[in-house]
């Protein structure tokens, strides 16, 4: 191949490229779609990982939804708090930390409180396996198995297993992606707004006698909280379920609950219920 041919080839390709580039530049001018300039600005702030963790097709799609008000700035788990703040500032709204959802582990039956089965469990230490085979070695068929599926599922390291065999959420690391909720085979983990503080830390539907026999912190199903709270708590097959729309904290008889199954996530500043032993555990 001689040099002239090379030069011609280069010139031809260069020329073609130049012509097409020029054509596209003109077309871009003529066919430009006027869109909200905010979309472009927000798109720049977003991580541009296009991972789809927000549930949109990509960062640009998320930016469009943000501007339309269809998405929440905190919806991007990759960008985290900082990105949410920046986006919220551009949009002129609150970053939505008020509605931030955290997973709450609604079982307090740790190793110290839950009664063991007669037989020990030997096998894969994953909740889904335990749940399939025999329900692990706790006697309660509703409680936390302690296998740590939620810990494995959390991509942000916000879920850790504590010494008593129950998982705990580190709220600083939690993005509210709710992967742990899906991972839990017993539906113990639920997403709740950050400001909710009263929970029934039990999922046991057994009758009072059985639930008392399997765990010392189970909801027995006595129904006293339901009777006193004017609809704030409803009984569902021997389990108190809080109806947050009708909940009035002051009407809940925390000290009347024999096992302390209903209680505060974080105890209020004035300790109102000193005998309820389970509250105060940071969940």
């Amino acid at each position, binding site marked *: 191949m001689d040099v002239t041919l090379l030069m011609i080839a280069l010139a*031809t390709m260069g020329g073609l490229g130049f012509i097409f580039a020029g*054509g596209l530049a003109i077309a871009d001018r003529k066919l430009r*779609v006027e869109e909200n300039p905010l979309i472009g600005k927000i798109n720049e702030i977003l991580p541009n990982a296009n991972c789809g963790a927000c549930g949109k097709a990509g960062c640009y799609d998320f930016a469009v939804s943000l501007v339309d008000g269809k998405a929440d700035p905190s919806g991007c788990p990759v960008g985290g708090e900082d990105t949410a703040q920046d986006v919220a500032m551009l949009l002129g709204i609150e970053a939505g930390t008020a509605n931030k959802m955290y997973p709450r582990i609604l079982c307090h039956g740790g190793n110290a409180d839950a009664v063991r089965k007669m037989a020990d469990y030997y096998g894969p230490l994953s909740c889904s396996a335990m749940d399939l085979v025999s329900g692990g070695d706790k006697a309660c068929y509703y409680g936390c198995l302690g296998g740590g599926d939620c810990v494995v599922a959390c991509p942000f390291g916000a879920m850790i297993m504590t010494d008593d065999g129950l998982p705990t959420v580190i709220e600083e690391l939690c993005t509210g992606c709710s992967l742990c909720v899906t991972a839990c085979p017993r539906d113990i983990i639920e997403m709740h707004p950050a400001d909710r503080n009263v929970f029934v830390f039990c999922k046991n539907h057994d009758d009072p006698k059985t639930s008392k026999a399997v765990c010392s912190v189970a909801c027995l199903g006595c129904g006293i909280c339901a009777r006193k709270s004017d609809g704030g708590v409803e009984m569902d097959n021997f389990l108190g379920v809080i109806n947050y729309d009708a909940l009035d904290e002051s009407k809940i008889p925390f000290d009347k609950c024999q096992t302390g199954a209903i209680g505060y996530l974080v105890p209020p500043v004035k300790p109102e219920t000193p005998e309820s032993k389970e509250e105060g555990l940071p969940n």
Partner: protein
Amino acid sequence: MELFLIFFSAAIVNNFVLAYFLGICPFIGVSNKISSAFSMGLATTFVMVITTIVTHLIYHQILAPFGLEFLQYVSFILVIASLVQFVEMFIKKVSQPLYRALGIFLPLITTNCAIMGLALFMISKEYSFVEGIVFGVGAGVGFTLAITIMAGIREDLELADVPKAFKGAPITLLVAGILALAFMGFSGMI
């Protein structure tokens, strides 16, 4: 008659999707609704026709006289990429819903091998300018036909009681295979 044969061959007998298995990606990806499948077919047809025109001119007016035939791949890719960019801008301007419906598959026309294949077939079969355009239209119509038929079947498939293991991609690929078999019935006509 010659032109009609070229058209018929490209559209039916040697259908790009069902006989050459080119452009399978959008064929599977955008064939879940008839309306968007048809639009995708039209967009691809448009790109195909313009591509044949431009590549024919470039090959016979620029590359061949200078003995630069070896540049055909590079320059064709350049042509296709620019054209797809243009079509994307055009559709975004004209129809936002269509732009959103086509989504990622619109820029992916760039990498649709049916279009590159079309340009290369046209050169290797030594078609004239008019024949090339007819060839492009035929290929586009064939693609539109295939993807629309596929979308029609898949819309009905939504209501069918498909075994769980076959749901989604497997049944789609099976249908595509059977459709290709059916089109084999045309082979040997020309």
